[in-house]
């Protein structure tokens, strides 16, 4: 018997989400009746379906014919891109458009194993200029060019 780990995990994910959302639904949302469906009735149907489908996938994973590769996870990319995006979302207002784009692009570029700081800085600078022109000059987004971190 070969166990298909990938399918087992997939099924478990669906079951977990179904149970979590199902629990939240039962705790917080009235179900109502067929005549007047409450805010909880449609979600509870979906949660039940998710648990059922997850169970089927788990069951079939026990008889999984082939195991497919999970492949490697580019941890470096996951980490760097997360920092780059979090930084942008959190500090855009304080940093302003130009420094935000520069920093985010530079950090994102480090996601690749073949990262070289100097070319990355050039790309980041170019994009910072470009984005500032397009989005501030061109479209007029309500974001400062340089934010409050940089006293004028």
């Amino acid at each position, binding site marked *: 018997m070969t166990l298909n780990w990938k399918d087992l995990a997939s099924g478990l994910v669906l079951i977990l989400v179904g149970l979590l959302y199902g629990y939240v639904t039962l705790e917080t949302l009235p179900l109502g009746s067929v005549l007047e469906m409450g805010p909880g009735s449609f979600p509870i149907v979906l949660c039940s379906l998710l648990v059922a489908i997850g169970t089927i996938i788990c069951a079939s994973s026990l008889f999984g014919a082939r195991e497919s590769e999970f492949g490697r996870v580019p941890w470096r990319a996951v980490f760097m891109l*997360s920092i780059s995006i979090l930084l942008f979302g959190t500090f855009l207002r304080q940093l302003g458009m130009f420094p935000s784009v520069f920093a985010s692009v530079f950090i994102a570029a480090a996601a690749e194993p073949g990262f070289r700081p100097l070319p990355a800085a050039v790309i980041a600078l170019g994009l910072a200029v470009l984005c500032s022109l397009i989005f501030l000059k061109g479209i007029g987004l309500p974001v400062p060019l340089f934010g409050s971190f940089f006293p004028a």
Partner: protein
Amino acid sequence: MEFIDNLGLGFSVALQWQNLLYCLIGVLLGTVVGILPGLGPLATIAMLLPLTFGMSATQSLIMLAGIYYGSQYGGSTTAILINLPGESSSVVTAIDGYRMAQKGRGGPALAAAALASFFAGCVATLIIAVVATPLTRLAVSFGAAEYFSLLLVGLFSSIALASGSIIKAIGMICLGLLIGLTGTDIYTAVPRFTFGQQELVDGIDFVAIAVGIFGIGEILRNLERSGGREAGVAKVTSIMPSRDELRRIVAPSMRGTAIGAFLGILPGGGALLSSFVAYNVEKKVSSNAAEFGNGAIEGVAAPEAANNAGAQTSFIPMLSLGIPSNVVMALMIGAMMVQGIVPGPEVLTKQPELFWGLVASMWVGNAMLVVLNFPLIGIWVRLLTIPYSVLFPAIIAFCCIGVYSVGNSGFDVYVALIAGLIGYILVKLDFELPPFVLGFILGPMLEENLRRALLISGGDLSIFVTRPVSAGLLVVAVVTLIVVSLPAVAKKRKVLFNESD
């Protein structure tokens, strides 16, 4: 003839110089993203949505539509020249197109693709013009029960797009429906699944989800494979096909157009499915079947005609019913809502200039693509030499700005990141994301119509089967589900999609 008057109105709008300009920008951008691997029309439209805030509704839709069908052209250019389909819809084009390029017939292959696409675009424009008015009249008579059944058809047929396990695709639909319910319940104003986050009370922003999944998640998948792409660009000497080649693409173009136009209208259809089916049909019926896979020009013309026809007719359900048949159309709906337009049958009656202007602009855009593509091929090929290490940080920046500017909030940027990471894991577990996204968009509509239908019927579930149109649609939904899960069809689907790898 009514539709001729309507098209006349459309062209008078589409040919205004600003609209021509936005159409040109759209198709050029579309071609560029179609050529660049790792950047598709979805991520592009999502990122550029904020650019359209300052435009009129007509201008923004004309530009966004141009990006969609322009990307089909760009995708086929790279498929033929370097065997690297820029878009999934041109995957099958690469099979015979690249062989032709290797044999020194890359130019005629490009010409065949462009001519077939243009022919399909003209026919599809006419079809939209003819079909839209009666379909809209029908749609006005639709009640909640009919809409519910129609949405089910859409959800079930999105399974046909999934290449892997059907049960997993259904799981993704349910998950999408559930996540899509986040926010305030419209009937009782109770917040649902917000987990105490004030930002979630208005729901999860669709643009953030789309950018996360198709922009950020895609980058992660691309960065798995380290190492650059080879740039073995085939030489293009002469573009003109021989008279014999021209003769051979006529019938495949027509068959491809018919298949694409039909599949495009179906919810869940669109460019991708159309090109696969057209290629396989052509392989069966062509008198030149033996040459398929070895550089048959028919194998280029048919899928290219089909994907362009499908891309255009997929606007029909979106424009007349307000229901997106695929994820790009869902983004178009988002763009309309930003402009304060509720998609649905009223658009045609209340804003005929918008509707017909958009339809006419698709024909104009297709003509532009044919004229522009040939002189610009040199530039397009050079685009391919941009290394991915330059491209992906730029995509990240545009994704972040795009998502931020939709609601002027950093919260949406976080949502995009989370969606990207979760989407990446789900793909790793062999789940497919288009059914999820479709479920996410259709979830609130599905629930609203279900609840309204039951209110009208006094809690009687039989309303869905006693109303004839609704019953008919439910039959279609069930048949769709049965057909895609038949073992024979499932096997076929697997072969079909694996051939493209």
